[in-house]
């Protein structure tokens, strides 16, 4: 969808595509270049942090901290920002900016430049595409708001259910009220303020209907996004959601050519390919194994709600699959029995592998 929209842009040299993770930068760049004719100008695809650093902070940093000579983005951060004052809160001694407060720094620079930073962007760009915007958090959202108030046209693509990453975990701006998938409420507020319009895209082009309805159940109906529609046809063999034994992932992975996803340390599991939840974002595989954590088992068997971040992580993992998802649990038959009694899983087809 994003790639198609970008390809319709009149002046692609005045278009930029932003996204938070490098995986996404790559995916977007590949998708866009596939849609575009060979030899035509491909718009720039760049990371959100690089954008803040080079296009907002760098040009106008002297208006805020004239003595800081900006080197780049810091690879590591201090353990505590509590006692850091002034520019030390934002930069290492060598002039590397801390990612956690990049958004705040950008907000301060925009203010110190009296809006010149935004005006500069207005003369460079007609359109900015922001992909995976659910990752934009903290003061980065204030930067986003400034962009929304500018003359630049913005297309923001986000799936609040995939809120597993954050541009900043230490910046507490908006953290309390718009936690995890609750971020949608902020966009809804902006919609009421007339800053943007929201279109809900409920059709998935990746997962088959059975996987789609299972994933919908993970976050429940309260998020207010409606039911996911899928017209992806099943392939006719080993389709749908399965429960498998945690100790049998290796055999299953080999039999079904499945990729294993675990919350962390996925590489300790035996499988043909292993990825951690967080890094799996943006990925597509035909067959997936998701290793259930304790809370996920509790959620599946007893319907005990997952904390928002865990729910999003689980959601992302499940939705990587196109045809089959196998949840690796301690005791598959017992789990299936527990699940069939729960109204939560009513009408959702879950099988033993």
């Amino acid at each position, binding site marked *: 969808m994003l790639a198609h929209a970008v390809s319709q842009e009149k002046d692609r*040299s*005045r278009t930029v595509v932003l996204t938070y993770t490098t995986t996404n930068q790559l995916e977007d760049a590949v998708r866009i270049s596939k849609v575009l004719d060979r030899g035509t100008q491909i718009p720039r695809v760049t990371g959100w942090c690089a954008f803040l650093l*080079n296009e907002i902070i*760098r*040009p*106008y*940093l*002297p*208006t805020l901290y*004239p003595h800081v000579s*900006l080197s780049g983005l810091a690879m590591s951060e201090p353990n505590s920002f509590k006692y850091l004052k002034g520019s030390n809160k934002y930069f290492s001694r060598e002039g590397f900016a801390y990612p956690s407060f990049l958004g705040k720094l950008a907000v301060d620079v925009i203010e110190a*430049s009296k809006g*010149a930073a935004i005006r*500069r962007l207005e*003369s*460079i760009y007609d359109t900015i595409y922001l992909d995976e915007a659910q990752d934009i958090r903290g003061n980065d959202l204030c930067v986003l708001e400034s962009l929304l108030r500018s003359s630049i046209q913005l297309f923001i693509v986000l799936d609040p259910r995939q809120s597993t990453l954050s541009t900043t975990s230490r910046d507490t701006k908006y953290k309390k009220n718009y936690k995890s998938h609750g971020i949608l409420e902020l966009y809804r507020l902006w919609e009421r303020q007339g800053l943007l319009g929201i279109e809900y895209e409920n059709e998935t082009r990746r997962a088959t209907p059975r996987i789609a309805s299972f994933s919908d159940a993970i976050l429940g109906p309260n998020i207010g996004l409606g039911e996911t529609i899928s017209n992806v046809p099943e392939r006719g063999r080993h389709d749908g959601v399965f429960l498998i034994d945690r100790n049998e992932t290796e055999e299953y992975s080999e039999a079904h050519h499945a990729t294993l996803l675990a919350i962390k340390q996925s590489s300790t599991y035996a499988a043909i390919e292993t990825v951690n939840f967080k890094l799996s974002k943006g990925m597509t595989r035909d067959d997936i194994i998701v290793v259930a954590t304790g809370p996920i088992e509790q959620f599946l068997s007893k319907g005990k709600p997952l904390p928002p971040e865990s729910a999003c992580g689980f959601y992302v993992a499940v939705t990587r699959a196109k045809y089959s998802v196998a949840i690796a649990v301690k005791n598959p038959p017992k789990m299936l029995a527990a699940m069939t009694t729960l109204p939560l899983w009513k009408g959702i087809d879950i099988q033993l592998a």
Partner: protein
Amino acid sequence: MIESIEIEGFRFLRDFKWEPKEGVNVIVGANSTGKSTLLDAIELVTKGSIRNVRATSGISPDWFNVDLVNEFYESLEAGRDCTPPEISIVATFSGDRALAHLQGCHGPNRDREDKPGLWFRICVPEDLRSQFFTEVREALKLNPHETLPIEYYKCSWTTFKGEQVVRRPSHVSCSRVDASPEPHSRAVDSFTRSLIDSKLTDEQLRTIAGRIRSAHSRIDADILSTVDISGETLPETFGLQLDKSPRSDWRNAVVLEKGSLPLSVLGSAEQVMAKASVSLLGNDESPILLLEEPECHLSHTSLTKLLSMIHGSISPKQQVFVTTHSPFVLNRLGLDRTFLMAAASTPSTIVGLSPETVTYFKRLSGYDTLRIVLAEKAVLVEGPTDEMVFSWAFRKLRGSLPSERGIDVIEYGIRYKRAFELAASVDRARIAALRDNDGKSEESWKDAVIAFAKEGERVLFVGHDDEGRTLEPQMVSCNHGNIPLLSTIVGYCGDDEAGLEQHLLSHKTLWSLRLLETDLAESGKLNVPRYIEEAIDFIDPIEKSLS
């Protein structure tokens, strides 16, 4: 386009600020006023090189302003605090959104409103300062006229956005077309090279390199490797292969062509035209074209062609900087786009010229406009007779010819009104115009130019009413008591005034030439018509000439 350029410490230009116009900018000025330095500075700040030599390798002590360097050494000797001489060139741009990526507030003056800009500096980095000072102090002890140790200097080329420029800033391009006496082939080759760098995409470059590599290896494998050269005075078993070192880079083998003839076999006019049009027309960026004295290497016809090409094809995004000594170029490109450079100071524009006058000078392409614009002191006379009589009179009264005292005597017919307007717009020359009264009152002539005349700067001197209609009767009447001498000098056999006057009128240039050529001991006894003497007193005040 370049909106402003500030140059500090670079050659002739010690402290130079200029706001050029969009489109064509004509820069005129005497020699050594810094015209070429200005073009060099524009090249440096937009390309990082001068005539295709990178600044980093081309930097030399003579790039530094001599006065600054001398003052630096004087302060050093006197033990005063001083900073090493620096070169700083700052260009700001406007009018093109594509240049907005150069925008920010990392310019030299951070309080200033932010703009797209480039800043080129040659300075001694902070960490080398103490070493630099040790070195220059040591050197100064041995030799009082030391040159700067340039190995301590570093080039820094940054955008106002705060980034270093690595290769060249995108969307800024600058081409220079000059008449430097280097072999043409070299100029064209490096020009083509710069075209390759700016025009070919990285992918095209890689493709060419790849194909040449495979052709090379095929030639090596199929032919050269089969050639046996053993025993040919070489000690070991040597073989042959194609050179793959940078020396044989394919870029050096690319030339411009026209009708499948390489440009190098075409004339220099073709070459200049090619370069100028390639950089003006074949470029969708915001090109800057530097044209150095195009009149030096073009025939009149080619020059006309070049000028009309520039005139016809230039878009507002483009900017042309032309230095010239030719009034033809100046008039053709428009006096209203002319900037005057006086000894390394900021150029003054020709302002407030009426459109009719601009058109007038454009039509009069061969006219000596430049002499009026450039002259510190000019005397406009009607024709050759007046010029010679003026010169004679000047020599009699001042003991030297006008030109020896920096006064340009120009035959200008009776078009002095336009000249006054032009001089008024430049606001620097002291101009006297001389004319006959032709039977009309002196006052009526002066009234006609009142709008552009100015006491002490631009004054019209008219032959006094009662002393004759034209120069000849004026000459006769002021030498009333010396008719035989005047007659002898001008070669009239007789001593009646009416006959002498008639003789003068029918031998106009001849009599004045004889007057000028006669020994001053003789001709000096003659009187000078009053209005000419007044004009001399105005253009070369007597107090000054005595001192």
